[in-house]
């Protein structure tokens, strides 16, 4: 019996991918989880692993070909190796539903959303569920990876699954067609042109579930401040050419914001922490999630160990990520493991916003649009380039005083950038 290898679900607004490379050729023996080929999409590159052991019998889609989600890539025949317990085919293995092709994501949302992670085949996760939890998950079409488990070592109990079914927070995005009646009911209105019903895509649902999970879990609130960008802008215009010549990367503001946050995080560790069970993990390193806008939407690659990096290295790393994002070269790994996030709604003109935490992080800084505004300096009204800053934080582990102090520290470092140099 041969087993089919198909293009896995890749995320919202990604309906097709290009085959970058085949690692195996027909006749090669493959083992379970061994990568077979690499797919490129506009946002990420991913490897397609073998889900059974055997011999690659046929490659259907050649290198360079563009393939749709769910399309047949290859087949694996029974070989010498005993067939491992086959994980069932990925949920999206059915012929791909026509997703709204290339509809650009709504980009106005200032909330950075964690990576479009191709969900693992649902079956893998359901295999590990207890029998009753599995029954509930399957009956209600839930995505187990989105259910918070309260059992031993975080396992999902029947109760957890039932709760998720009730609250609808973990509805799987598998290509299950909506109940016919709902579809027809919608159709009549749609026909009149007042409404349009579009199926939520996998990524949209992931985003929705993550955001709600964040709001349901953390005690979130936001503190604001404003920063006079004059000094930073002056510094930048003076050195940007020299900087770019030396490092080959533009001197932007983001590097300064990252440095300012690192300084403040070092002083207020609660903002760089997470809750794990009944313990708090304080991280002695900073993996900074930095929102990068692309044509396809906002992604948040993670610059690792920024505490050890200079301004130029940070700018280079961000620049690299920007390029990778544009070229669709971001790997899943680039989007994971952040300990703090900087989001920038200012790119789209936002003057003020309350970012939502990327769980399990305890803080997220919101940058906004720089706008000339009258402010009072030493008793005189003057015009200054001002930016509002927002810090959303998890009040469960960050006290108000800590949050406010953090933001004041960020403001100080940005208004008088020499502080970053002097470390004061």
């Amino acid at each position, binding site marked *: 019996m041969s087993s089919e290898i198909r293009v896995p679900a890749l995320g919202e607004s990604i309906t097709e991918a290009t085959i970058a490379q085949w690692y195996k050729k027909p006749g090669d023996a493959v083992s379970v989880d061994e990568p077979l080929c690499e797919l490129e999409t506009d946002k990420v590159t991913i490897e397609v692993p073998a889900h059974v052991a055997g011999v690659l019998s046929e490659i259907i889609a050649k290198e360079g070909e563009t393939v749709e989600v769910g399309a047949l890539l290859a087949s694996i025949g029974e070989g010498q190796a005993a067939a491992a317990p086959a994980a069932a085919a990925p949920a999206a293995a059915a012929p791909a539903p026509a997703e709204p092709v290339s509809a650009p994501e709504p980009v106005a949302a200032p909330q950075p959303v964690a990576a479009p992670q191709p969900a693992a085949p649902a079956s893998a996760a359901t295999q590990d569920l207890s029998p*009753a939890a599995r029954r509930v998950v399957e009956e209600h079409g839930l995505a187990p990876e989105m259910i918070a488990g309260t059992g031993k070592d975080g*396992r999902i*109990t*029947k*109760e957890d699954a*039932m709760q998720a079914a009730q609250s609808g927070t973990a509805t799987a995005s598998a290509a299950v067609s909506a109940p016919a009646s709902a579809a027809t009911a919608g159709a009549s209105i749609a026909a009149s042109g007042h409404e349009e019903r579009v199926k939520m895509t996998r990524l949209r649902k992931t985003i929705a579930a993550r955001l709600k999970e964040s709001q349901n879990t953390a005690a979130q609130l936001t503190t604001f401040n404003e920063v006079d960008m004059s000094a930073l802008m002056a510094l930048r215009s003076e050195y940007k050419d020299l900087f770019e010549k030396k490092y080959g990367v533009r001197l932007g503001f983001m590097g300064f914001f990252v440095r300012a946050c690192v300084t403040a995080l070092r002083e207020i560790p609660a903002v760089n922490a997470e809750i794990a069970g009944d313990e708090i993990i304080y991280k002695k390193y900073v993996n900074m999630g930095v929102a990068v806008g692309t044509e396809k939407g906002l992604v948040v690659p993670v610059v690792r160990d920024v505490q050890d990096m200079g301004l130029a290295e940070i700018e280079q790393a961000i620049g690299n990520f920007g390029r990778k994002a544009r070229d669709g070269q971001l790997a899943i790994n680039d989007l994971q493991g952040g300990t703090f996030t900087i989001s920038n709604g200012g790119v789209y003109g936002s003057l003020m916003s309350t970012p939502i935490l990327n769980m399990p992080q305890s803080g997220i800084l919101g940058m906004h649009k720089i706008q000339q505004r009258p402010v009072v300096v030493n008793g005189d009204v003057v015009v200054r380039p001002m930016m509002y800053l927002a810090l959303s934080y998890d009040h469960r582990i960050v006290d108000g005083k800590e949050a406010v102090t953090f933001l004041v520290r960020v403001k100080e470092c940005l208004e008088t950038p020499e502080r970053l140099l002097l470390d004061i």
Partner: protein
Amino acid sequence: MSEENTNSFDLVVIGSGPGGYVCAIRAAQLGMKVAIIDKRGAPGGTCLNVGCIPSKALLHASEVLQETQHAGDMGISVGAVKVDLEKMMSFKQAGIDGNTQGVTFLLKKNKVEEIHGAARLTAPGDVHIDLLDGGQRSLQAKNIVIATGSEVTPLPGIEIDEDRIVSSTGALNLPSIPKHLVIVGAGIIGLELGSVWRRLGAEVTVVEFLDRITPGVDADLAKNFQRALKKQGINFMLGKKVTAAKALKASAKITLAPASGDGAEETLTADRVLIAIGRRPHTQGLGLEAIGVTRDQQGRIETDAHFKTNIDGVFAIGDVIAGPMLAHKAEEEGVAVAEHLAGKPSHVNYDVIPGVIYTAPEVAWVGRTEEQLKADGVDYAVGKFPFSANGRAKVNGTTEGFVKILADAKTDRVLGVHILGAQAGNLIAEAAMAMEFSASSEDIARTCHAHPTLPEAVKEAALAIEKRALHM
């Protein structure tokens, strides 16, 4: 090695019962230098020497006797069956010796130094020992674990002479089968030993202060259990208090009065009386007062979540602290304290500690009883399945009893499992595992159980929660 070195340890455990020796072994596994002290001369504590193990030897032997007596029903004729009590006692002793030697082997294998003597704390970190074979020794310990267990609770005004009036220790070692054995206390120990001597031919009368047997056990289970014991010929006198017990030359006289207050006294004559009203923490002579270890009103050593007493470096586990006096509870605590001292996370889940009464039928439970759930205001569903509907129980001729599963009415999470029947003590393991993983009754119901086995009754009880038992 210098003198100082041989007497200084990372951990000194006082008491080598199941809590103590398990703690010592685990600590040694984690790289600590460990000594364990016991004044009994053999490791294993009450459990191995005068408790669980010898009583199970006698329960097993007497059960074999009973089965043999009924072997004719299965077409096996064995002629007249006789009991050689002396030989039965040496069978019991062989069981004890095998187990205690096993513990000594394990301690040695893990390089735990076993010291025979009575230990006393002279200061935090300092342990003084009066060695059994004379002489003294002083140890320095970074940490000390008190695991000295428990002792028989005496009945005020009644002297236990271990001849006519005995504790469980004496009742495990009677020189002859009593004609009439009176047992004061219808708890686990009294009923197990009562079963032993009843099967061996004694007339057994159990006197209990409360109006029910086995307090704490699910009432439904206790009622059916009492019925089963009654059928075996054990007499019960409930709601009675013992006002006097006196050892005579060849018998003992025991005076009872209604527990509820005034009423006519009555007298029982027996050739042996077993006082089995409970056990109390054993904390005497350990020097606890000297170093200021605090105890609660019941005399139990007070500890925090990591089993530390109010004195730094002094820990306590098992029967000397709060909680059920069970070997397996002490073992869990012993492991937890050793892991805690090694800087590892440790945890004992007190909601999932099984209890077993090794009679026939056996009684076993884990989690909360119906009474507790009612008191806690929990809305629960009951799934019950009788062994009379279980194929294996039928051919084994052990159809007495049932499995009862209590699950949360809303979430279906298993809250308690109560079993009366043959092998209940083995059957409860599955329930404990399920509860440890926060399983629902449906999880048990959807797990494949081998046929034909007694565990199928557990599965059927789980099915019965949703009123879909298949074989009823």
